[in-house]
């Protein structure tokens, strides 16, 4: 009898613990594949996220899953790499940016919408299937892309810039005058807050900016001297 009681005391807590863990794992797994839109592949320095505009900002960590309506915010010299769960593309959220991630499942496809409230994003989006969407949205422009790379920027003054290294983008202007346009590879469009827009060939400065957005490899140069050390941290191109 003593032995039975002893076994009961030892086994019962273990069984209860195991049972709860299993429930939690099941719940977690059931969420990710069905509702997740993207996950955080890399963060550096100050990167925060929140589930919606109604919740508080929290620290973003590597591997964090992003759901429909989640936001990512980066601080000075900070970086977040966002990978879409369907493998359709990579967003490099550069410093001082706020990005909202939206995703809607239709049949087997995931229609993605990245709303850039402000800041700079480098993007590399794979070719989408015919009935699949990938959109960048800003307060003034919606850009639909397919197999496109480049950068998109929206300043606090309301200036929209999109510059493409490859692929094309179909642009819908949300301003009072409305309208559509197509941006092609090697070109840039700049749309000011008052609706003026300028299509032009990528300048050297814009090419450099595009290259800058691709630098996500955090490296250090440490200079050690008998008068003290200096540590230079910098973003280097991915090898």
């Amino acid at each position: 009898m003593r032995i039975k009681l002893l076994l009961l005391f030892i086994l019962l807590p273990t069984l209860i613990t195991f049972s709860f863990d299993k429930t939690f794992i099941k719940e977690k797994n059931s969420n990710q594949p069905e509702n997740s839109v993207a996950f955080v592949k890399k963060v550096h320095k100050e990167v925060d996220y929140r589930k919606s505009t109604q919740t508080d900002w929290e620290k973003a960590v590597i591997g964090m899953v992003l759901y429909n309506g989640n936001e990512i915010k980066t601080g000075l010299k900070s970086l977040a790499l966002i990978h879409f769960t369907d493998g359709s593309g990579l967003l490099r959220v550069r410093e001082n940016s706020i990005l909202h991630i939206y995703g809607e499942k239709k049949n087997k496809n995931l229609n993605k919408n990245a709303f850039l409230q402000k800041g700079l994003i480098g993007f590399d989006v794979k070719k989408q299937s015919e009935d699949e969407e990938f959109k960048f949205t800003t307060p003034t422009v919606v850009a639909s892309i397919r197999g496109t790379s480049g950068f998109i920027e929206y300043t606090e003054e309301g200036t929209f810039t999109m510059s493409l290294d490859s692929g094309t983008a179909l642009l819908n202007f949300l301003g009072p005058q409305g309208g559509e346009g197509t941006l092609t590879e090697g070109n840039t469009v700049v749309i000011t807050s008052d609706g003026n827009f300028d299509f032009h060939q990528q300048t050297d400065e814009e090419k450099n900016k595009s290259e800058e957005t691709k630098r996500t490899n955090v490296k250090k140069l440490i200079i050690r001297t008998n008068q003290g050390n200096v540590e230079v941290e910098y973003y280097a191109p991915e090898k």
Partner: protein
Amino acid sequence: MRIVNILFTFLLIIILDINSLKAQNATITLNIFGDLSTIDFAAFAVEENLENQPRMLQVIINPPGMEVVVEGIFFWLRDRASGFQQVGRFKTKPFTARTFYNDEIGKISDIQLEESSYNSDLTNEILEKGKPSGIFQIKFNLYDKQGRYLSSAEDQLVFLNPTPPSITSPPDKSVQDIGSILVSWDEVLGATSYKVLANYLKPNESDEQALNSGNLLVNNRDVGKQTNIDLTKYLDRELIADTVIVLAVKAVVHRPGGYEELMSKPVVFRTGNQSMQSTEQKEINPELIRLANFLTGKVDDAFIMKLKNGEISADQIQFTDENGNTLVFSDFIRILNFLEQNLSSVISVQQIGR
């Protein structure tokens, strides 16, 4: 008898006075002729074993026929700072006064040397220059047979055998503050003005190529007779920090029928940052100057100055990456190039104490 004595004395006085007047009237005159722009030092040598001396000086002694001794003294003004220095002196044995030339002294039987002496240090220096340059002062004293002074003549020879100017500042391979770059050079006697030229020196470009290119930083600017200037006052283009500059100075010397420009040996220096305090004599690794410029404003000024003035030298620095792996100097330069060209990629620069 008393009258005879008085008359004799009177005549003696007259005769002596006449002779004295004769002696007092003896004159010596120098005539310098010919183009002295390219004369050889041999013109000054009166040694018997020297031959083929150039004839440049005529000595006229009047009246001819009296027994005289001639003394010659040569002084040389190398530069204004050193003043005139005696190069040599000679004195002849008594000879019958006549007109003669410098190439006859000591070689013609009637004009023989009694004594001669030379300052060996100065003569060697002049000989090393090959051709005399500067100002030579010649003084000829005329004495009678008894060694009594009769007359003298002197003249100056300005030799337009100038050597090119030599730049004394900035020192070669030095680092200069772009706010003010003092350039000075040795005075070239006979130069009517100086021209300054400078240019950026590109990698793999020779000094001469840089100075002969069409778009000079300082384009043959005539600065008059001054021998020191602030280079930044004569720029034809913008002077950029952290660049390599080649500099030369030309002395303009007028010749019969034209002028000649004598160019100094070029000097190469690097421009530093505006905040630098002084030029540095010691050789400083230019890559560390670049590093200092890159770090300016990001770490404390004392560290920057130590990099710039060589207190922290390349061999006292170890470069490592984020994993502690040692980087060779060429890796450091490659990274520095990247950082300089991509300042926006720099995330942070932190100085960690000693």
